[in-house]
């Protein structure tokens, strides 16, 4: 298994207090480099928008492409699990409107929030005033968000990357972004020469080497490729096969019933059977996700609140559900379980009242529906939604909710 991100950071931070210190050191580096680059000076920041000094563009996109190539190189060589990396979710329209508002604030005030912190730290009075204004701004947002709550939660696309939008392999996107950034740097330098009257002959030659290095690493990412499902499974297979064999992850129908009724849990039920079987009978609240479409919903599962989400996969018996479980394990989705004995076992336990549902004698293990239903009523059968209070079922509890830290860390941004 990739060793990064470190295990301790996947748990609530309070369980390992030293993690706060690590974030503090990272923040220290962040502030130090911002100050070193001149971002404590509002004149330098604002000059970006008059084409005189494109430091903002160079530092910002320089940082983005440097971090990007290193992130995807680490993922390609298998030391970083990119599925565990927090990718800011896309809420398209609030994001775009917020972006324009931020642009206005940037040119009016001369800073962005991070740079104003650094400016205030070096006693720039305008930086301090901007920071106070920013604190007022976040306060004002918290107080007024209720008036446009619907809009603020609209156009949600979850964990959406440029690779998903353009249907391109990661390596191609990484290379294109590097080339685009280098083109912008070149264009920026030309603007500085024409408008800012800068003598480009005095710029360090070393920057060509830097550009070359970025292209080389991007090409390496392209050639190596990102780990596919088989690679990802191979990394975890031995441990996961063991817990399958020990039947640690196959939960009794009674446990699923109890979990569904537990308000504190966010239980996702994924039914991976054929559409026909799903239409005949499925659990109330079960979502139909055929095996071949399971990978498409992985980004969504990765963004679920990690503290209390339990995902249960089911098929008629266990075969297809086990395949689904393996795939989700390989993709680093946490707290995934298999319904023991599948739908057939569920009906065996809860279907006593369904007089018209009769066993067909299909052998266990074939992963086919072993009951005949009078009509395709889906979840309108009584057994699709048994009352947890009426059933007293003995079972060995297996769901061990791993206490996890949500990727965004609770709030957002």
């Amino acid at each position, binding site marked *: 298994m990739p060793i990064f*991100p*470190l295990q301790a950071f*996947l748990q609530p*931070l309070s369980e390992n207090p030293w993690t706060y210190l690590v974030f*503090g050191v*990272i*923040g*220290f580096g962040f502030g*130090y*480099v911002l100050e*070193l*680059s001149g971002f404590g000076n*509002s*004149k330098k920041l604002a000059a970006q928008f008059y084409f005189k000094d494109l430091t903002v563009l*160079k530092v*910002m*996109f*320089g*940082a*983005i492409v*440097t971090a990007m190539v*290193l992130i995807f190189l680490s993922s390609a060589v298998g030391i*970083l699990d990119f599925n565990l*990396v*927090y*990718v*800011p*979710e896309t*809420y398209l329209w609030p*994001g*775009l409107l917020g972006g*324009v*508002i*931020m*642009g*206005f*604030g*940037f040119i*009016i005030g001369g800073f*962005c*929030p*991070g740079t104003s*912190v650094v*400016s*205030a*730290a*070096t*006693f*720039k009075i*305008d*930086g301090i005033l901007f920071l*106070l204004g920013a604190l*007022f701004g*976040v306060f004002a947002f*918290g107080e007024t*968000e209720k008036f446009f709550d619907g809009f*603020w939660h609209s156009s949600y696309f979850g964990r959406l990357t440029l690779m998903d*939008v353009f249907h391109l392999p990661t390596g191609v996107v*990484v290379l294109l972004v590097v080339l685009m950034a280098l083109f912008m740097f070149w264009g920026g330098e030309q603007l500085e020469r024409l408008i800012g009257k800068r003598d480009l002959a005095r710029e360090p030659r070393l920057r060509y080497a830097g550009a070359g290095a970025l292209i080389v690493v991007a090409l390496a990412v392209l050639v190596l490729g990102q780990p596919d499902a088989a690679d990802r499974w191979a990394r975890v297979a031995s441990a996961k096969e063991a817990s399958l064999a020990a039947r640690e992850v196959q939960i009794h129908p009674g446990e699923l019933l109890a979990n569904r009724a537990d308000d504190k849990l966010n239980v996702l039920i994924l039914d991976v059977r054929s559409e026909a079987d799903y239409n005949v009978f499925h659990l109330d609240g079960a979502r139909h996700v055929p095996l071949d479409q399971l990978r498409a919903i992985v980004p969504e599962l990765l963004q679920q609140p990690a503290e209390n989400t339990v995902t249960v996969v089911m098929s008629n018996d266990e075969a297809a559900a086990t395949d689904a479980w393996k795939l989700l394990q390989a993709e680093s989705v946490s707290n995934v379980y298999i319904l023991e004995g599948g739908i057939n076992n569920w009906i065996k336990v809860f279907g006593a009242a369904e007089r018209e549902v009769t066993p067909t004698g299909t052998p266990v293990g074939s992963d086919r529906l072993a009951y005949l239903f009078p009509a395709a009523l889906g979840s309108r059968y009584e057994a699709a939604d048994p009352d947890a209070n009426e059933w007293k079922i003995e079972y060995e509890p297996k769901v061990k909710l791993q206490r996890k830290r949500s990727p965004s860390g609770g709030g*957002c941004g």
Partner: protein
Amino acid sequence: MTTIAPARPKPRAGLRGVFSRPEKPYIHPYLGGALLGIVLFLAFLITRNGLGASGGMNRYVAVVEDAIAPGHIDRTPYLLKLAGGAKNPLDDWSVPVITGALLGGMVSGFFNGRLKAEINKGPRITNRTRLLLAFTGGAIMAYGARMARGCTSGQGLSGGATLSAGSWALMMCIFGGAYALAYFLRKTWN
């Protein structure tokens, strides 16, 4: 043969010395970008999270609100997520990051002789106008940052490096918005 080293200006002792260290030039922007990129990469590699500023500010504001009017927090769904009930709004990665950034900026300012109480502004506006615009701009920027669920750091840098589609789109909007208004504010900066 002896050479006499030119006498260096002796740094002044005491607190005044902190503010009168020789000012050094900023580093080259590409070097700054590469260093910032390495910090950003290490943040993702080790912790899964990138960098952020407005989120941490939000939590400092929430802690003050929670102290003054705890009932109010519990009635506002947006604030509830941060500070509802027994939740400590400061128990989040964004808080040590922004606190560290403040320290890091100060230490760099100290070593590079840039700890100076001053107002940076265009030559044609008064200090008073500049400070008023700084406060106004800060409020607008932060309001937009919360609407977008992250600022130039949380969305721009962190979303940019992880190739988040929404982050790239909103980053274009930040630059677009600033360029669109820049012409009208040219007298405040030039």
